[in-house]
């Protein structure tokens, strides 16, 4: 049986991560933060968003520094807190904002909302609300890679809460039995809606579940973008080289309620304060400044660039039409030409 590595045993070879990679990480993390901020704290309050808003504030390093390892034809099954994945996979900010506004130009053309978006052209499998349902589906994608002899990897995301679901168990077990090229990235943000982890599972770490499947696993600080990057690289290499599934648990914290309407009054204030000090974006900025890889001006120009991207996207989305009512009927079944 494989030994599980812990954070302290994980040697992050930060020196090997290029300045350009770090800049990319910072860019996508900041972009995720800002775009979600605009959606949740501005557009939602202006009544421009249709339905609920779920954000990954404070957890941006996980989506970004894992998905950045995706190669052509890899596939990803994100959750509702993985904005960074959509951005990295090349889904445009315009289509994303339009998605939240229920417009025809949104990723699902108004058929579904918020993070329930997928696009196989971008190798993204759309998430459904039933947590854990994406796990067997991602395993099926990985099975196909194996059947076809492709050296691709399925990137599969779950929160710690989803690990209580039967689909999660069945999917992980299936992937392990068939030794599939899949990495299970667990975003352990410590709350499933209002349910704290001790009411969710009787073990300390999600990674404690991995030995039940004889699966390689490790626990990593999810707010340290470079540690996330390193560990994801190891995990993806492992899966890509045919060694089977790998689970990486990222410890982080949900810096918001479950969704925009939820004030998270059930979370002790001290926890928010403690985790605010571990903010992944500020940490990466500080690291890069200390290493002489970033300046205050550099941060400002990145912020300005991102603001311009988002302004454009909002403007574009806001001018986009709503879908035609009759579009409701389209796409239930295959529509041959």
């Amino acid at each position, binding site marked *: *049986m494989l030994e599980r590595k812990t954070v302290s045993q994980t040697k992050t070879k930060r020196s090997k991560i290029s300045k350009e990679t770090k800049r990319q990480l910072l860019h996508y993390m900041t972009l995720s933060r800002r775009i979600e901020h605009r959606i949740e704290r501005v557009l939602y309050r202006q009544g421009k968003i249709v339905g609920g808003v779920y954000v990954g504030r404070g957890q941006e390093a996980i989506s970004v520094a894992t998905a950045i390892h995706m190669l052509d034809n890899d596939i990803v099954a994100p959750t509702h807190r993985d904005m960074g994945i959509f951005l990295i996979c090349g889904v445009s900010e315009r289509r994303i904002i339009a998605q939240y506004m229920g417009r025809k130009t949104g990723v699902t053309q108004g058929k579904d909302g918020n993070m329930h978006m997928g696009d196989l052209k971008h190798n993204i499998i759309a998430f459904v609300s039933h947590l854990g349902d994406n796990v067997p589906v991602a395993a099926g994608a990985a099975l196909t890679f194996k059947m076809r002899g492709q050296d691709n990897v399925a990137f599969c995301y779950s929160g710690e809460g989803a690990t*209580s*679901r*039967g*689909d*999660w*168990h*069945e999917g992980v*077990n*299936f992937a*392990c*039995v068939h030794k599939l090229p899949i990495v299970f990235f667990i975003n352990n943000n410590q709350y499933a809606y209002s349910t704290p982890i*001790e*009411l*969710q*599972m*009787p*073990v300390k770490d999600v990674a*404690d*579940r*991995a*030995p*039940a*499947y*004889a*699966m390689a696993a490790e626990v990593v600080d999810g707010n340290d973008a470079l540690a996330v990057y390193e560990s994801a690289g190891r995990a993806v290499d492992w899966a890509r080289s045919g060694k089977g599934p790998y689970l990486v648990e990222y410890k982080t914290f949900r810096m918001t309620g479950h969704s925009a309407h939820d004030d998270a009054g059930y979370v002790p204030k001290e926890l928010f304060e403690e985790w605010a000090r571990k903010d992944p974006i500020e940490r990466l900025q500080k690291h890069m400044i200390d290493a002489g890889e970033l300046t205050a001006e550099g941060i400002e120009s990145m912020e300005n660039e991102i603001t311009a991207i988002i302004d454009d996207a909002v403007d574009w989305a806001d001018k986009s039409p709503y879908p035609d009512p009759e579009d409701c009927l389209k796409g239930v079944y295959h529509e041959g030409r």
Partner: protein
Amino acid sequence: MSTAKPSTSKEYRIEAPDGLDLGKHQFVELYHYIALNRRLEERLSILYRQNKIVGGLYSSLGQEATSVGSAYALADGDFLAPMIRNLGSYLVRGVSAKDFVAQYLARECSPTRGKDGTQHFGDLSKGLIACISMLGALVPVMAGVAMAMKHRGQKNVALTYCGDGATSTTDFHEGLNFAAVHRVPFILVAEHNQYAYATPVSMQFTIENIADKAPAYGVHGEIVDGNNVLAVYDATRRARQMCIEGKGPVLLEAKTFRRKGHAEHDPADYVPKKLRAQWEAKDPLDAYSRFLLDQGVATRSEMDDVDAKITRELELAVQEVLDSPFPDKSIADRDVYFSARTDGGSHA
């Protein structure tokens, strides 16, 4: 986690665990249940070949010690949900051989009055809950039974079984996790009989022991020789004690082997002959008989008396059932819902 691997010496011998709290009467009673389990299934097999059985017939040949030993460790007020290969567990709880014959022959006098067959029956007055065909489904249900016991402050436990195959299901995972989060008095006996229908365990999971899953749920796990009725009894008794002390749930893995096919129609050609022979040599009934003789607990003639009694009981049961009617069609649409006429509220 303690392990008790079956002996590999030529003659499979079982030993009594240290501190076993059984007297002569109980040793013989255990023999009675195992032998009855075996003979009843043999008799059912004959009825199957005579085309008297309605539907399928499922055998627990080779696994009788697990059913009998675990059920025997339970106390009054405990609840038990046997699976399809736990005929012996029902017997220990006082279900008669006739009930089984009647179930398999789909007669009016059967526990389900012909509405369901096989081992798909329960009796709340005996603390028995019926299984359904969906494997693993009993795990959350029995977690709920245990939750109700905890809620009421009862010093009781809920026990059910699952095969190696059922460990792959949603209900196994959700049920065990749920039971563990709520620390309810629940024992899950995982019968590692090595085949799920035609699927060997290597295609079922990637670990060697089902008990290896216990840490993933933060519960106590233990492996026991499922062919040693005394070891199963003792391990279940200890698991029960842990549950009563609030240290549950417990995942108890019984290593055993399914000696017949999935059901009577299945010759199980997919099982290597050598593997089958290995386990035939570990027959739980033979091993227990040898133990009783070797230890001087019972004589051959005492066991013969038990066997003769069983034979008489079975012949009587079969005859009675064969002479009894099938259910009248008028009951077919009854009891889908509660009716004051037929149900006075039988809840425990």
